[in-house]
């Protein structure tokens, strides 16, 4: 965000706050056998942190690069988007190197023959020379290395979305919706490596949420907030959100005690995350409508000291996301090597979230320091920010 060109107060802190919440939930969800999983976004509806993350990313991308395009033209905006995609790519490769380190270490210190055969399947070990190349072209997506490839692909198509939106929002939305519906109808997916697997987050489906976020971001930027739609959708959204909450809770209780009835489990499960099943999308938008209605951009809690760490996490989302992946791997390692009891779980969760917040605070401090002395020398309106970081 080029925040020096506008007063900080005009930045919509809701975006940072909810992206921060999503990042913390992603961290918690990524630690297996973690009781805190029951309290993340996935517990209150069919959607989870992934939807929030992708939607807000589309929303902010539209704000930032839309502004860049209006001020400096399509070409510069495109270059900025590509630069951002490159940063994400580098981050992805960084995480992949850590994955390699983890795999190599674990396999070399492996004592249990019961898994040797199965572990050999990890195609990385069998054909490392191919697996590395497949990772470089985003085709090999081991555990947790699946959302950045999606984000990268979404940014690569984003200049087209920007140009289309400039003409008419329907020019951007209509093709996106058609592709999404096509995926729902035909079950089309994008093949990945190894042969037979597919992209965990089907970009053909998830692009719709990103484009929707972008279109809503554009209306917001033009101060033509979709107030009528929000008013009309308000009551249905309350109904949907309550129904989704009740169903999800019944599933959670059913998981704990088999005698507890799981509502509509037979009809609704499994909810297809890979292809962003409509029920996830509807559940997410019900929450979106409620949040848009209940939480005004100027809500005082967004500025309180208590929410500040979350807002900071959200405003440095790429770094904090990468850190969260590292931390959840580390947390899991500690839990499986030392203990997995409740105290340990609480400790790794609390420490991990604290590490994320502290890092975000440090990054923010550094950004301010870096900016401050240069400010008077810069011509007004110049772009020094990192875009949406």
């Amino acid at each position, binding site marked *: 965000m080029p925040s020096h060109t506008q007063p900080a107060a005009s930045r919509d802190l809701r975006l940072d706050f909810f992206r921060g919440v999503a990042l913390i939930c992603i961290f918690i969800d990524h630690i*297996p056998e973690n009781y805190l999983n029951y309290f993340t976004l996935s517990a209150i509806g069919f959607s989870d942190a992934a939807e929030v993350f992708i939607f807000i990313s589309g929303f902010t991308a539209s704000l930032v690069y839309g502004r860049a395009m209006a001020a400096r033209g399509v070409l510069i905006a495109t270059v900025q988007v590509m630069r951002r995609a490159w940063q994400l790519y580098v981050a992805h490769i960084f995480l992949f190197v850590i994955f390699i380190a983890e795999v190599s270490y674990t396999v070399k210190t492996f004592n249990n023959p019961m898994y040797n055969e199965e572990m050999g399947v990890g195609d990385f070990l069998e054909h490392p020379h191919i697996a590395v190349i497949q990772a470089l072209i985003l085709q090999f997506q081991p555990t947790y290395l699946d959302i950045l490839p999606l984000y990268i692909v979404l940014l690569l198509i984003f200049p087209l979305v920007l140009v289309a939106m400039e003409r008419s929002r329907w020019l951007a939305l209509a093709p996106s919706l058609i592709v999404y519906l096509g995926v729902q109808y035909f079950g089309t997916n994008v093949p990945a490596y190894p042969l037979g697997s597919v992209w*965990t987050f089907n970009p053909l489906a998830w692009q719709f949420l990103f484009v929707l976020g972008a279109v809503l971001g554009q209306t917001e930027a033009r101060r033509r907030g979709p107030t009528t739609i929000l008013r009309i959708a308000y009551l249905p959204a309350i109904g949907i959100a309550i129904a989704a909450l009740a169903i999800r809770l019944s599933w959670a209780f059913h998981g704990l005690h088999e005698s507890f009835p799981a509502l509509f*489990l037979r009809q609704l499960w*499994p909810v297809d995350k890979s292809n962003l099943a409509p029920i996830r999308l509807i559940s997410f938008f019900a929450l979106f409508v409620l949040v848009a209605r209940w939480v005004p951009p100027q809500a005082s809690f967004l500025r309180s000291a208590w929410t500040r760490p979350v807002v900071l996490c959200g405003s440095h989302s790429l770094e904090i996301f990468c850190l969260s992946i590292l931390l959840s*791997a580390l947390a899991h390692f500690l839990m499986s090597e030392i203990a997995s009891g409740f105290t340990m779980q609480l400790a790794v969760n609390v420490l991990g979230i604290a590490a994320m917040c502290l890092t975000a605070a440090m990054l923010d401090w550094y950004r301010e320091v870096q900016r401050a002395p240069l400010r008077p020398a810069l011509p007004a309106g110049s772009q020094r920010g990192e875009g949406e970081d």
Partner: protein
Amino acid sequence: MGGRRYPAGPVVLALAGILTAMLAAAPALAAEPDECATPPELMEAGTQLPNLAARLRAHQPAKIVAIGGASTIGLAAGSPDRSYPHQLDQILSHDYPQASITVVNKGVPRQSARQNLDRFPTDVFAEDPVLVVWETGINDAVRGTDVDDFAETLQTGIDQLKNRAIDIIMVDMQFSRSATALINFEAYLKALHRVGDLAEVYVLPRFAMMHYWSEQKVFNFDEVAPEDRAKLAARVYNCIAYKLAQVIRRAVP
């Protein structure tokens, strides 16, 4: 006959005593080794195996097919003779001396649930089993198969078996500390158990059992010499066989 009622009590009691003694002695169920003990809640859920029960009632031979991966063929123990299907075969022959039960091992390492399913026509239906023990999920977790596809494959397999009047027991993944640090099993475990739940098919919680043994340091691969690891693996397979036998005995007393 009022006077003779009193002596009848002890006689009945004695008869009952002899009967129970005979009952206890006659089948002499194969005793589970102490090291296999697990918390009772892990074996709480029961299941029905109507087709197997009917077959045994009719005194006809019953064939069980065990399909799955490396842990079905018994790779880590060094020989199929030490695999859980073979040990299950031994336990069942012992526990049902009157019946003719055979367990056929159709484990092939490194196969996904989908690949198991593709083998059903040749490896399962061709054998004409009355019960199938389907051990699956590890390779799907290792390879990162789409979880929904995994669930759908299981559902298809279960439907095919049910349509042919074949009873089913599912076996979930193996637990290993180092592997869980690397592979995300949770989503696949959840999917497997939920499919079982919806289809009313019993899923042996092998993951939870092995997790428990690991916590209790019952089987510790870190502390044995490499050449003894196969023996340790065979002991784990043996315990799994006892657990399966227990599930079958409960369904078909």
